[in-house]
């Protein structure tokens, strides 16, 4: 029997003793629980058939100097209710340990390792406490997101080596790849254990491009950090800056004007469009089908030049600002956009036909790099990759932002989880993006671009914001510090969630197919490493 009561009530009823406070943060219900009860409550949320919670975000906050307290927050997306629920717990004084929930939820694995590296808090019971963000050459005891760690102190190097998981046996050998790869891509390390050609194990070792983004946010003023958010992951400039701006707007009580909402939708879809088209070309290129790659490269370039003409930036940087958008588009410009996209859609459809008529190409895509729905669910996989594996989640529909409450996008969903499915999701979303941009043009209301804040953001308050970028869910938690500064900014690019899943998708495939699988995920290294 499925319990129809609100999630909060269900948890309260089941764990009366464990809950110390029930409240809501900007509309998201939050339960403060005793830390020793965290694993059981998390397990309950995850496995209860009427809730089916998946861990969307786990972050820590160091509340010093205001009080000697670390706070841990767990954001669950309840799949059955398309709703959020927050769990929070506190570590006071010298407490440094908290119970790990990873034994119950795979999805918590990297978050807890990250918290251990950046805050020095220890997830007790975690099955894998190797370092994640801080590579082995970082001195012991250096935890950069603690408030007493200076933002600009570069530490010396010590000796140390990462212990990769080993598979022993006759004929088993290791293939190390990276951090510098063969193509023009970002740095990351992949360690394959193979017997012959099939991959027996893949271990991803990332965080080479860790730049200290979250600490840099803490040096900024609330209203001035938009350019930094655009540079978290360059190909997602609009997605990240929009998520950041929305969080600040919640904190300042700003109701963004309808026109700005529509324009934000337009820019976000333009970003989705040029990235998806580039990805389709790149997937074809990794099957050595240069023709489709060339055509897609040409169309992507056409879109980036369009971006440049509209906004002065090929990456649409500088369009989002706190309170709205920084630039307007004229009716003439919008008409030009529509004309250009109409030709582009025809152009692209022709390429689609050519691609799917090519049996030697589709043969490479089918059954390659399968990520099953079960594994995707266990790892809380999201975005394009999730939707190709049957995870029916899209924030544009589930928690509408910008103008998506009016425009209502259709969500692409495939179940097979192979490279072809991931490509198909992108193809569907390309057409849907073009349709949405047409709708924006048709429905674009008049009005101001920037709305002034209702009030100053209150110190100590935080807000959560979510945007469905082209890769998937981008989450930002922004907490206000003293004098309009940022106390804490948690950035979560979808790549951080999906990287561990690629280790599963690669299993059993041959090494030469890995680049293809990797391309079909196309995750950001910079957005992951921060």
């Amino acid at each position, binding site marked *: 029997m499925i319990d129809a009561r609100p999630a909060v009530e269900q948890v309260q009823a089941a764990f009366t003793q464990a809950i110390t406070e029930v409240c809501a943060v900007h509309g998201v219900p939050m339960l403060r629980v005793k830390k020793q009860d965290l694993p059981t409550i998390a397990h309950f949320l995850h496995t209860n058939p009427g809730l089916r919670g998946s861990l969307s975000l786990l972050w820590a906050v160091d509340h010093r100097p205001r009080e000697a307290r670390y706070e841990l927050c767990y954001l669950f997306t309840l799949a059955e209710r398309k709703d959020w629920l927050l769990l929070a717990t506190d570590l006071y004084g010298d407490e440094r340990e908290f119970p790990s929930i990873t034994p119950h939820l795979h999805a918590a694995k990297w978050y807890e390792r990250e918290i251990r590296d950046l805050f020095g808090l220890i997830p007790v019971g975690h099955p894998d406490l190797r370092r994640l963000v801080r590579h082995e050459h970082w001195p012991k005891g250096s935890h950069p997101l603690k408030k007493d760690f200076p933002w600009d102190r570069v530490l010396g190097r010590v000796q140390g080596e990462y212990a990769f998981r080993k598979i022993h046996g006759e004929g088993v050998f290791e293939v190390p790849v990276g951090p510098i790869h063969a193509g023009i*891509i970002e740095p990351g390390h992949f360690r394959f254990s193979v017997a012959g050609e099939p991959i027996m194990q893949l271990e991803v070792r990332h965080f080479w491009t860790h730049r200290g983004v979250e600490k840099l946010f803490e040096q900024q003023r609330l209203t001035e950090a938009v350019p930094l958010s655009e540079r978290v992951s360059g190909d997602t400039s609009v997605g990240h800056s929009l998520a950041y701006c929305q969080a600040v707007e919640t904190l300042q009580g700003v109701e963004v004007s309808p026109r700005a909402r529509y324009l934000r939708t337009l820019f976000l879809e333009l970003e989705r469009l040029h990235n998806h088209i580039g990805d389709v070309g790149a997937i074809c290129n990794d099957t050595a089908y240069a023709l489709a790659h060339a055509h897609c490269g040409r169309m992507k370039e056409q879109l980036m030049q369009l971006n440049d003409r509209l906004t002065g930036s090929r990456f649409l940087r500088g369009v989002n600002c706190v309170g709205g958008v920084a630039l307007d588009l004229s009716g003439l410009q919008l008409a030009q956009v529509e004309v250009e996209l109409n030709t582009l859609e025809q152009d692209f459809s022709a390429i689609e036909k050519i691609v799917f008529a090519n049996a030697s190409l589709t043969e490479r895509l089918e059954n390659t790099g399968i990520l099953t729905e079960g594994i995707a669910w266990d790892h809380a996989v999201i975005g394009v990759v999730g939707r190709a594996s049957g995870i029916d989640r899209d924030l544009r529909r589930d928690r509408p932002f910008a103008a998506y409450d009016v425009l209502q996008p259709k969500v692409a969903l495939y179940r097979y989880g192979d490279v072809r499915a991931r490509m198909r999701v992108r193809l569907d979303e390309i057409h849907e993006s073009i349709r949405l941009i047409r709708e924006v043009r048709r429905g674009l209301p008049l009005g101001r671009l920037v709305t002034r804040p209702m009030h100053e953001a209150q110190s100590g308050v935080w807000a959560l914001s979510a945007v469905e970028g082209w890769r998937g869910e981008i989450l930002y938690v922004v907490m206000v510090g003293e004098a309009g500064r940022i106390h804490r900014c948690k950035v979560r690019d979808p790549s951080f969630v999906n990287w561990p899943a690629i280790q599963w998708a690669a299993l059993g495939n041959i090494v030469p197919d890995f680049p293809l699988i990797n391309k079909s995920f196309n995750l950001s290294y910079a957005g992951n490493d921060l």
Partner: protein
Amino acid sequence: MFRILKKSLQTGVVTGQHPAGGAPSEPVSQDAIEKAKPFRRSMTIREVDTGSCNACEMEMNALANPVYDVERFGVHIAASPRHADALVVTGPVTVNMERALKDVYKATPDPKIVIAVGDCAVTCGMFKGSYAVTGPVDRHIPVDVRIPGCPPRPAEILAVLAKLRQDDPDADT
């Protein structure tokens, strides 16, 4: 087959269909031009990302698309630094990438030139001062050419590469 040919004929030649790059915002020094002399007719590039946000990578990749088609100038992208004449470095050099950058520099055979692409590689950009950043690039390896911009447009990168080829007697530009 017919469909493919039809598409190609309809599309025509798109190479060069981009706004002009303009003069390089940071002049290319005579020393760099002199150093690049052996590579005037053919230059093989190895790209290294030392912590960029990936926008610079996207623009470097764009150089290879049919619109910019950098191969027509004899510029190739190599998969290994051992095959490279020039290193293109992007990003502010993170603590974690510092050693890899130095290794790549050593692995690249002489003579070689180093081109720093993007504000981060040139000055560390927004990431200047961070605990995780030890750049800019010229703190670790000698840099010959700097192409600032966040990120520089592909046409701007092309313009600098053209500058490095300028003394080629057979060059058509």
